[in-house]
Each structure stands twice: as structure tokens, then as C-alpha cells.
């Protein structure tokens, strides 16, 4: 009711100690399509669902290469994702130039976290409206980080961001051991695609046009699979459509999902307004 008094800029705290502009920025991530990241002992994989605004339009890129050993998947405002990934590229090149050393993934992700944090404490600026999954391989092995516009950064074995990403997280939680023990890149990618498939809306299925995959790891420099190159991975999947679409037991599915979301109260409104995968009129596009 009084919420509006405290959400005009990012320098105003609410009486309960919240910064609403930052929370709104976190909402922008949930409007974007899902991206999933996961790691084995040797590799890190990112998979993302690409969106097109209309039938005749192209699909917006989800995965951006930063350096030979690092890349990001984004959900939210794509321009903000570009700004941050360009900054990461600069950091990576400067590490190569100044120290002849690939930029450590932790250092990369903390450097953009610092940038994002500054935008939450100065008047006249706005927080970034994008969430990133940063995957990389450095001398301490494979890494997957989630970056949020609040400036918070967490490392994961596997996680997902974007619309209906809770379903992917649930899949990853259930199959964590088999994901971590993946012997081959193929197994890891298939786990990623299985997780991504669970985020699909009704009547949508994974195609080589709307799916992209990237891998980085031991003796593997960051590689993105898109378009025609994507099909090889989809061919290995038992089905490309959402399990909810295949089962007639819709009620059962909704019940389990409801439970899973119950454990994450923060994501309650994540799925709202996203039922048909179409953007509302007048809303800023997110990918």
C-alpha cells in the first residue's frame, strides 16, 4: 500500500530495509527466457532457450563468449547483458595483456558484481536488469557462478535463471549426483537439455532454432552450439517437448511443481504473466 513511496530510486531504503528498485531489477530476470548452467568435475555447460518476438523475427542470442576459457548466458535485458559481457571481455583481455594470464573466473564475476553494486547506491543510476550465469574453466577447475543485479554472486554445481527456471533447478537438484559424475561432455549437455526442457511452456518444444548450448572445460575452449550445430545434441534427447505436454496427468505435475516452489518463496511470482510466452504490450523486451 505504501510501497510506492519507497521505490522511486535505488538510493531509498524502505522502512523494512529493502531497496525496491533492486528487487524490480531482479523481476526483469524472471521475465527473460530460461538459462541453465551445470558442471561436472572437468567441464561446465550452459544451455539457454532463445526467444523470437514474432514468427518472422530472429532469435535473440542467449550465450555470449567472453574469452577462450569463459562465457555467459543471460536472462533479462539483453542490452545490459551486452554491457556486462563487453566489460568482462575487456577485463579478460587486460589480464592477458598485463599479466599474460587467463582471467580467473572468480575475479571476473566479482568485478561485475562490484559494478552492479555501485549502481545500487548512487542517485540517478539504475541497477542492471539482467542476470548472468558465468561458466568458465581456470587453474582451479570448472566454475559456474550466478550473477544478480543486486551485486550478489553465488557459485553453483548447477542452477537456472529466467522464466519457469524453478523446474530446471528441481531437475538439477534431483539428478545432482549423476550430473556431477558425468564422464563425458555429452552426458552433461543432455542433463542441461533435460533441465531446460522442464522450463518449457505448453506447446513449445526444443528446436535447433530456439536452443543454444555451450561447453568449456579441460582441454575444451569455450564453444557455442547454435542453429545447425545444435541439432546433434537434440537428436540424442529422447523427446524435445516438455514432460507436462506428454503426460495427461497435468494435475499431478502441477502438484509436484507447486511443492517445489513452496520451498522457494522468493520465486512465487516468477511464473506470472508468462503463461503463453508472449510479451505484454508496452513492456520492455527481455530475453
Amino acid at each position, binding site marked *: 500500500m505504501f510501497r510506492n513511496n519507497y521505490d522511486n530510486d535505488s538510493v531509498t531504503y524502505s522502512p523494512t530495509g529493502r531497496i525496491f528498485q533492486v528487487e524490480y531489477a531482479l523481476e526483469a530476470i524472471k521475465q527473460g527466457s530460461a538459462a541453465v548452467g551445470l558442471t561436472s568435475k572437468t567441464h561446465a555447460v550452459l544451455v539457454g532457450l532463445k526467444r523470437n518476438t514474432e514468427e518472422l523475427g530472429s532469435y535473440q542470442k542467449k550465450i555470449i563468449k567472453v574469452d577462450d576459457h569463459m562465457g555467459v548466458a543471460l536472462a533479462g535485458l539483453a542490452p545490459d547483458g551486452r554491457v556486462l559481457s563487453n566489460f568482462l571481455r575487456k577485463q579478460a583481455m587486460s589480464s592477458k*595483456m*598485463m599479466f599474460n594470464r587467463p582471467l*580467473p573466473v*572468480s*575475479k571476473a564475476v*566479482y568485478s561485475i558484481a562490484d559494478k552492479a553494486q555501485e549502481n545500487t547506491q548512487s542517485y540517478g543510476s539504475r541497477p542492471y536488469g539482467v542476470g548472468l550465469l558465468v561458466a568458465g574453466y581456470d587453474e*582451479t577447475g570448472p566454475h559456474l557462478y550466478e550473477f544478480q543485479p543486486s551485486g550478489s554472486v553465488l557459485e553453483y554445481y548447477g542452477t537456472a535463471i529466467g522464466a519457469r527456471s524453478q523446474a530446471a533447478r528441481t531437475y538439477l537438484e534431483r539428478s545432482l549426483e549423476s550430473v556431477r559424475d558425468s564422464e563425458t561432455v555429452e552426458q552433461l549437455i543432455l542433463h542441461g537439455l533435460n533441465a531446460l526442457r522442464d522450463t518449457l511452456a505448453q506447446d513449445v518444444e526444443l528446436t535447433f532454432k530456439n536452443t543454444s548450448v555451450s561447453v568449456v572445460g579441460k582441454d575444451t575452449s569455450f564453444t557455442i552450439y547454435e542453429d545447425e550445430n545444435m541439432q546433434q545434441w537434440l537428436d540424442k534427447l529422447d523427446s524435445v517437448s516438455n514432460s507436462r505436454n506428454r503426460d495427461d496427468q497435468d494435475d499431478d505435475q502441477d502438484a509436484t511443481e507447486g511443492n517445489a516452489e513452496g520451498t522457494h518463496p522468493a520465486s512465487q511470482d516468477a511464473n506470472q504473466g508468462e503463461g503463453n510466452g508472449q510479451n505484454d504490450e508496452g513492456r520492455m523486451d527481455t530475453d
Partner: protein
Amino acid sequence: MEHDPFKWGKPRNDVYGPYSYEIAGAKVKGEPSASDIEKFPSMHTQQPIITGTSVLAVKFKDGVIMAADNVGAYGSLLRFSNIERIIQVGDQTVVGISGDISDMQYIERLLEELETEEDVYDSDGGHKLRAPHVHEYLSQVMYNRRSKMNPLWNAIVVAGFDDTNEPFLRYVDLFGVAYGSSAIATGFGSYLAVPLLRNLVPYDADYPKVSEEDAREAIVNCMKVLYYRDARSSDKFSLVTLKKDQPLVFEKNVKCEGQSWQFAKNICGYGSKQL
């Protein structure tokens, strides 16, 4: 020309007019004073003032050894006798610096900042800033400064271990010139110590045949030869030994032992003098 002892050698004002400070782009009119310093065009290091002499280093079987004496000379005056010219960066890298001491102190601060940033962004400690990275950084700094016509007046030796844990030894100087070798010395050392060290390690790839004891003996001997023949050196020096997977050993206040001066009493005059 002025013959006034305080203005000796300058053109006379009554003949040539007063010196125009505007020639150099200075904004100050008339005789400048010390407080006008910031009104002058920027003045770069054009010569070293307080200087440190040679730094020596040599690789051996599973490490590197480095030495540098503790003098800061003001011209021919041995003004400071307690200057530490070997800087530790992280736990397996050392940087030995000769040349201008004020520029050395600036580099010391750069390296300290580098180490702080490394600690801040590497909370889990998995990423080590190794010797090759420190050397690359210093090379960039040195070349950048000389390209601005404002060099850091130093010659630097970086010792440590590379990514594969092999001994690393590399040089960079005020021009940004860099090279690696199994035996490196700066300044006077490059004339007097390198030939002796190359007896120990004739070819670059020979260092795995050299024992730590032999390397140390050679370095200590070189420091003694330099003390004999370099007028800006001292017999007190620091000696750092880096060994694979072991904490580095930093010895301070090492003395040049076993000098031979006995023969001096038999030398008499400059030619014909007999007694």
C-alpha cells in the same frame, strides 16, 4: 659569460637579456622559486639520484638464487647502507631491483597494490600470481613509462617459478627490454658476474645439472668480486633462495667472507720504486 661564482658560466643578462622561462612553456615570470614548481612543464626523471648497484641471480636444479647488496649511493657517496633491494611478491616470487631507489620504492608500492588486489578477488586462494605474471606486469609498466619519455630508471630481475613449477628467471629494464636466461645480472654485475656464473651454467638448458650448493657458492663469490671492483658496492648483502615447493629463505646481512688482501703489502710504487 658571467664570472660571478654563483652564476658562473651563464650568459650575462646585460649582454643577452634575462633568461626567458617562457621558452620551456613555464607559466612563471621572472626568477622562479621553489613554490612555483607546479607551474613548470612536467619534469621527468632524467638521471638516477640515489642508486642501487648490481642484482645477481642464477637458476639451479630445483630453484633460483638471487643476491643484491644494501647500499643506496648518492653519486660516489655511499649515503645509505641499509637499503633492501629484493622484494618478495606472494610466497614464491622475488623481484631484485637496481638503479634509482625512489623509482624502486614506487615499484615496491605497485607490487604491494598488486598483491592486495590479488587477495581481495581471490578469497579461496586458488589463483597464484606467479613470477611470469609479475614479470609481464613489470615489463608493461617499464615499456609504458619509457614510451611516455618518463622511464623508471631501473633494471629489474624477477625470479620464481612458472605455471609448470619450473624455475623462472627474467630481466626487464628502463627501456622495457626483457630477456630470460639461466644466469642474469644487472649493471656492473653483467660485466663481472655473468662471466663467472656462465662457468657454472654454460648453456641456458644446463641449470638442472647445477646443485643448490654450487649455485650459492658462485653467487657469493660473484658478490665478493663485485665488492673488490665495483666502487658503489658494499660487502653486506641480502641473499634469497627459492626452492620448489618449499618456503623461500630470505637471508639478510650476509657478509663477503674470505677476501684476499695479503698480496697488497708486496706491491710498491708504480714502476721503478723498490721498497
